[in-house]
């Protein structure tokens, strides 16, 4: 029917426009002239209708064409945008890869090279090109196992040892005085943010790192100081004391009540958390004001959206935000460790809370508070590495100590499982349907993953494998949504190439689990990676 004119309805009123009763009854109604005239009229009418119809058809076709073009254009743009994204991520991945491989060979050594080298070190990491072979036999070699070494400036061989005989290391000028109070097993790392000096042979065009990564440990220490400040305030401020504990317990309880389910399942809990934070922000109890910059990776100036934000924020608010972060981490450690899928609702709650404009400062979220905690409890997410068989290695891996003894291996691995899942739950949120800004966008997930899989073969640890598995399991779908085919390539690297690089003899249950996960993914979601 598409090409033919619409058939004329019977009751069409223009059928015989000139026909009147008189005409019908007229003498010449059957004359030839009349007949021809009538044929003529009919033919014209026919032409008119036909033209009308053809025009309508043309217009319709044009509209269709236009719509199709628009649609195509939109799709094309979408594809380009996606490709660009993938390309950008690929570049980033490549940059990361390139960066990791070339670990600076020599380290500044705070220890005296006094100890007689007991024996030639058996296992020199192949990945470390060592232009100064002399150092290879010194004890500092093992420091190479530390992911942080990548940020250190190689020191000349004969550098004087500032810190002989294993005395407690002095805090570097970069760490704050409060650091001394601290965090026993992190002292080694917190010494290290001496980093901003560029490395000698930058392997790739290096972005200037304005802030060393270990700013996080400083934030963590500052948060501890904040807690002390709150206890002190509570001693003199009755109002504060009355509310602080209840608010903290309220938040902890609400975080514990979060469950999976359709949207809105956790509205009551989310509201409760927000309510407490708003109350703290209003600061009717009169807690001291503090500078939020102490808890941020990079300081924010007045110019950066500071117009709306006050210079300082109530300490109670920052304290509660810290308690909220703490409750979330604890939920990951205690609950998601046993059932990783419980991390997801907590991740949603974190994203909703930190992205709320009310709880932002100078135009950005305060999520660094949470990430500082992640950095302490699960350092492998931030590129730190270590051997599970050494004291220092365990510390770098975030292996917890309780009352002087290391927690059981199963407990450690469970913790790492919960934290890996928690990290994915926080960093793979989809903000495309909201006007809010994602406080911790997926590129952080990619970076963390890259930092793990780019570990030089001899330094791969079970902890990394466990964290990696937990980051992927239950999140492969979200990862694919964000990164498309690049995600598939990344998963292949994580689940096949990474475990395959583990030196023979070091295969373990944790490493083998990655391959089993691939089998599971293929079986359950048809994702073929091989």
């Amino acid at each position, binding site marked *: 029917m598409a090409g033919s004119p619409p058939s004329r309805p019977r009751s069409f009123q223009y059928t015989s426009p000139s026909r009147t009763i008189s005409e019908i009854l007229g003498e010449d109604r059957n004359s030839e002239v009349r007949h021809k005239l009538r044929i003529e009229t009919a033919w014209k009418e026919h032409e008119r209708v036909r033209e009308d119809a053809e025009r309508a058809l043309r217009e319709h076709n044009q509209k269709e064409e236009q719509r199709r073009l628009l649609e195509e254009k939109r799709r094309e743009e979408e594809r380009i945008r996606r490709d660009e994204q993938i390309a950008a991520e690929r570049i980033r991945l490549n940059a990361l890869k390139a960066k990791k491989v070339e670990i600076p060979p020599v380290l500044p050594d705070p220890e005296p090279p006094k100890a007689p080298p007991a024996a030639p*070190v058996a296992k020199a990491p192949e990945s470390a090109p060592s232009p100064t072979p002399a150092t290879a036999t010194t004890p500092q070699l093992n420091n190479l196992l530390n992911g942080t070494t990548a940020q250190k400036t190689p020191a000349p061989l004969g550098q004087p040892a500032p810190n002989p005989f294993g005395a407690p290391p002095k805090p570097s000028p970069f760490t704050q005085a409060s650091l001394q109070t601290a965090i026993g097993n992190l002292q080694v790392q917190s010494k290290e943010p001496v980093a901003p000096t560029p490395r000698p042979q930058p392997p790739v065009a290096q972005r200037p790192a304005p802030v060393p990564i270990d700013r996080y440990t400083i934030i963590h220490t500052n948060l501890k100081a904040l807690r002390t400040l709150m206890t002190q305030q509570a001693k003199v401020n009755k109002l504060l004391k009355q509310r602080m*504990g209840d608010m903290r317990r309220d938040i*902890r309880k609400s975080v514990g009540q979060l469950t999976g389910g359709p949207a809105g399942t956790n509205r009551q809990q989310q509201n409760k958390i927000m309510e407490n934070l708003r109350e703290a922000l209003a600061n009717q109890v009169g807690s001291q004001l503090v500078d939020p910059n102490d808890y941020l990776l990079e300081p924010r100036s007045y110019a950066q959206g500071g117009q709306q934000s006050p210079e300082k924020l109530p300490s109670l608010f920052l304290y509660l935000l810290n308690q909220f972060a703490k409750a979330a981490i604890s939920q990951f450690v205690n609950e998601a460790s046993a059932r990783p899928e419980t991390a997801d609702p907590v991740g949603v709650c974190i994203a909703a809370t930190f992205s709320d404009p009310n709880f932002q400062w100078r135009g950005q979220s305060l999520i660094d508070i949470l990430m500082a905690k992640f950095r302490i409890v699960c350092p492998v997410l931030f590129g730190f590495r270590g051997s599970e068989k*050494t004291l220092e290695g365990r510390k770098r891996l975030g292996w917890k100590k309780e009352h002087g*003894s290391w927690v*059981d291996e199963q*407990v450690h691995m469970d913790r790492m499982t919960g934290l890996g899942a928690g990290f994915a739950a926080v960093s793979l949120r989809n903000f495309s349907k909201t006007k809010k800004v994602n406080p911790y966008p997926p590129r952080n997930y990619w970076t963390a993953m890259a930092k793990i899989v780019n570990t030089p073969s001899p330094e791969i640890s079970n902890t990394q494998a466990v964290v990696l598995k937990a980051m992927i399991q239950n999140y492969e779908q979200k990862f694919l949504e964000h990164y498309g085919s690049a995600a598939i390539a990344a998963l292949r690297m994580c689940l096949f190439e990474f475990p395959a690089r583990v030196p023979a003899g070091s295969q373990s*249950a944790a490493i083998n689990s990655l391959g089993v996960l691939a089998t599971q993914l293929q079986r359950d979601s048809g994702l073929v990676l091989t």
Partner: protein
Amino acid sequence: MADLASRITKPDEEPAPAAPAAETKLDGDEEVGSALVDATYDVEIKLSDLQNEEGNPLYSVKSFEELGLPKSINDGLLAMNFKKPSKVQETALPLMLANPPRNMIAQSQSGTGKTAAFVLTCLTRVDLNQKTTPQALLLAPSRELARQIQGVILSIGQFCGDLTVVAAIPGAVARDTKVEGSIVVGTPGTVIDLIKRNQFDTKNLKVLVIDEADNMLDMQGLGDQCLRVKQKIPRTTQILLFSATFPDKVMSFAEKYAPSANQMRLKHNDLTVKGISQMYMDCPDQDKKYDILCKLYGLMTIGSSVIFVRTRESADEIKRRMESDGHKVSVLHGAYEGVNRDTLLDDFRSGRSKVLITTNVLARGIDVSTVSMVINYDIPMKGPGEREPDAETYLHRIGRTGRFGRVGVSISFVYDKRSYQALTYISNYYGIDLVQLSPDDWDETERKVQDVLKSSRAKPDYAPNAIKVD
């Protein structure tokens, strides 16, 4: 650890050459080792120095692979995040898998992997090509437990091809159908019925497992039925009895039921899992218990929790109060039946609800790994008129938390002389110290709970190492 010596490059305070003897001391004594903690070089150490927990029921030196399990089963364990066998698995598995098969009576603390141990045995013993021939029968005291075991078999066996596991529980097998599966899990009554009606062919059974064996073999309860099951199976069937508790009066019967068995036993006061922090809350009176209960959830991080109550009425009332406080609650007691009970428990298991309020029907065996708190809203009692404290039930109840080395808390409510005396009896029976909590100052109570949690795993006496194998 061949290169151990070579890696010791320890510049000590006194510049002595590093010796392996000095190095092995590293961990045990912190005051000596503190200088080492600050050092910036790495020293490799032995696992036994890192974890001085030979007696820990979860400690093991072996891997599952070393126990000679097939790859398909090992992959299932990896998928479930099991990395290493627990003590009971490491000790009992080789004995159970040895040929010719020998019977086994095994006792191990709650949450230490008993289920996985006997499931691994069954999976290894059955011929999976005979899909319709029942070759292993597992009996449990309740339908919930039977379904749970079925779930564990399917999880561990997820890479074992077409594994068929039939649940022989009320309402699950139609009257005129045969029981066709390599493995059958059920409750004794239903299994007896199926055998009597010739629906269940037992002549190819290779393994019979009785979980919660002390409860199952109790002649006042299910003992008679278990005996009848035994009469219906081949005499060559390997019999495995498992439980966390084996009171003496049941033991002699158990030894007859499973003759000349290998045995793994625990001493009286090694029964409780030390990883569970046991506390009690001093409530001013019965009515205050509701409010206090709700407050507990702010004191520490809680995943899921189980609340044991005496009556159905108080269960329903607690549910109402807790729901208004924002909790998602399931109630499960005798008033619910069959499939309803399954759904309620599935909600809890899957995390759709995080609080489970129940009467004693679920004290035993139920394993929900995220349970981090158990509340004895009423102290368990037994006997006529419920006059006698029920120490065994207490133990099984608190064993719902602290699964597989995780942190768990149990809080028992006392409010009058009777409940106080009952709890005192129980704590004396097991030789445990209960920490007292008070509802007067929540800041203080929170601090106390946090302290207890921090020290839970690190107690010097955390070494219930009385596992002996005869």
